[in-house]
C-alpha cells in the first residue's frame, strides 16, 4: 500500500533522513520507533508531502506522490494525525470534524461515519459545540484521530498519539488504535512509547539518527535485547 524508497531529507544542511526505505501492506499496523530526534516525524511529514525529499520516492498504492500537491493526498485515501494534535483550537469540535470531512461529498455515508467516530470517542459528542482549545490534551488527541478518521482513509498516519498523556489515556488511545486496525484501516504509527507501539503493531522499523537500524516482526522486536535496552527501559 505504501512504499518508501531510498528517501533522503535535509533541513537546510542537516541530513535528517538517510536513505530510508520501508513499506506498509494493506491491513497492517507498522510502527516506526526510535528516540527523540531520530527522524520519525520527518518521515511522516515527507510521506504527507509537508516536506520534500531530496532523493527517493514515496509510492501510495503504486502511484508516486512527487507530482501531487500536499492537499491532494487525502483524496487518495491517506490521513495524517500530526504530532502535537494540531486541532483548530478556535473552532468547535463539530467544525474540526467538518474540516476532517472536507473532501467528503456523500452526505448519507458521512452521517454513519460521524456516528462511528462518536462511538470511538463518546466524549467528543458531549463536547460537540465546545471550542476545541478548551478540551483536555487527551480529548484533543481523540479529536485529532476522529478528524482524520472521518475522511475515511485507507491509510492512517499516526504521529505520537500518546505524547504528553496520562497513562490511563495512553491505554485508551491505543485501544482505539486497535479498534481502527480491526475495522481494516492500515496504520503507520510513529511512537516514542515503543512498548505500547510494539504491542499493537504487526511489524516495526527501528530508527536511529535518520537511519533504519533494525526491523522485523513487532513481537520479536519486543523481545529483542538491543531494542529492550535502547527503547524499552529493560
Amino acid at each position, binding site marked *: 500500500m505504501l512504499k518508501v524508497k531510498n528517501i533522503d531529507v535535509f533541513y537546510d544542511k542537516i541530513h535528517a533522513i538517510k536513505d530510508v526505505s520501508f513499506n506498509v501492506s494493506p491491513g497492517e499496523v507498522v510502527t516506526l520507533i526510535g528516540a527523540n530526534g531520530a527522524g520519525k516525524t520527518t518521515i511522516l511529514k515527507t510521506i*504527507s508531502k*509537508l516536506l520534500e525529499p531530496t532523493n527517493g520516492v514515496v509510492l501510495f498504492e503504486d502511484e508516486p506522490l512527487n507530482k501531487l*500537491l*500536499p*492537499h*491532494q*493526498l*487525502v*483524496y487518495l485515501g491517506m*490521513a*495524517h494525525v*500530526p504530532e*502535537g494534535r*494540531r*486541532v*483548530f*483550537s*478556535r*473552532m468547535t469540535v463539530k*467544525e474540526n470534524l*467538518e*474540516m*476532517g470531512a*472536507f*473532501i467528503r461529498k456523500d452526505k448519507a455515508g458521512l452521517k454513519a461515519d460521524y456516528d462511528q467516530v462518536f462511538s470511538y470517542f463518546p466524549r467528543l459528542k458531549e463536547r460537540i459545540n465546545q471550542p476545541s*482549545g478548551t*478540551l*483536555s*490534551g487527551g480529548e*484533543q488527541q481523540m479529536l485529532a484521530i476522529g*478528524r*482524520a478518521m472521518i*475522511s475515511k482513509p485507507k491509510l492512517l498516519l499516526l504521529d505520537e498519539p500518546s505524547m*504528553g498523556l496520562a497513562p490511563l489515556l495512553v491505554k485508551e488511545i491505543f485501544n482505539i488504535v486497535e479498534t481502527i486496525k480491526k475495522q481494516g484501516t492500515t496504520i503507520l504509527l510513529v511512537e516514542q512509547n515503543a512498548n505500547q507501539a510494539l504491542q499493537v503493531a504487526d511489524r516495526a522499523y527501528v530508527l536511529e539518527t535518520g537511519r533504519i537500524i533494525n526491523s522485523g516482526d513487532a513481537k520479536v522486536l519486543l523481545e529483542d535485547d538491543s531494542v529492550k535496552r535502547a527503547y524499552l527501559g529493560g
Partner: protein
Amino acid sequence: MVLFLQQMINGLSVGSIYALIALGYTMVYGIIRLINFAHGEIMMVGAYIAFILAVNTSLPFILILLISMVLSAVIGVLVERVAYKPLRKAPRISVLITAIGVSFFLQNLALVIFKADPKIMPELIEKKPIAIGPLQVGTVTVTTLALSIVFMIALDLFVKRTKPGKAMRAVSEDKDAAVLMGIHVNKTISLTFAIGSALGALGGVLYGITYTQVFPTLGVLPGLKAFIAAVLGGIGLIPGAVLGGFVIGMIETITKAYLSSQWSDAIVFGLLIIVLIVKPTGILGKNEKEKV
C-alpha cells in the same frame, strides 16, 4: 444632547467605513500574517472604479457598487498572486516591504491615469436629511451604516456557516493541519484577498461619497486608521476589526466635534500607542497558550 446623538450617528457611519477596511487588513493578516499596506490603495481603486462608472454610465448606485467590489476583488487577488505569492517562504519583512512597494505602485499608477487633482464624486446617493425623532440624519450616513452592517453580517455568516468560510478559519489557524484536511491553501488565500478587497472597495466607494472626492492618495489616511482599528480590536480577529473600526470612528468624530479637528488624528494615533502598551494583543486579542 441632540447634537451629541447626531455626532454619535456620524461616528458610527465613519466607523463602519473604517471597520470595512479593517476587515481586509485583519483577514489577510489572519491568513498569511502580513500587514497588507496596499489595502488602502485597493480602497482607492474601488473608489475610482465607482467614479468612472458614475461619470460614464447611468447604472444604478447598487450596481456600480457591486461592479466596483468585484473588479477590486480581482485586482486584490492579482496583487497577491504577482507580488506576495512568490514570497510565501521568504522572511516576513520581505513581504511587508513588497506590500509597501505595491501601495506606492498603485498610488502612482492612479496619479498617472487620473492626475493629482481631486475629482468630484457624483452624487450616487441622493442627499437629503431623514428625520429620526428629533434627529436629522443624512441619507449618505444612513446608507453607509446600513450597507456596512449588511455586508458585515454576510461575512460573519460566510465565515461561520459555509465550507469555504470554515476552511478559511482553519487555514488561518494552522496551514499544515489544513493541508492535511485536503484544503487547497493557495485557493483559500486568494479567496481571502478577494473578500478583503471587495469589502475595502465598498469602504472606498462609501468614503468617496461621504467626502464627495476621489484622489490618488484617498486610501492613505483611512487605510492607516483602519489598520489601527484592526490592531486596536485585535489583529487577525474579525469581530476585533469591526469593534476597532467603530471605536476609532466614534473617537475621531467626537474629538472633531468637541475638541479640535486638528487634534483628532493625533488622538487616534496616540490611542494606538496606549493600547499597544497596555494590551499588545488588542481589545479582543488573547494570548493563546498550547495545551499539553
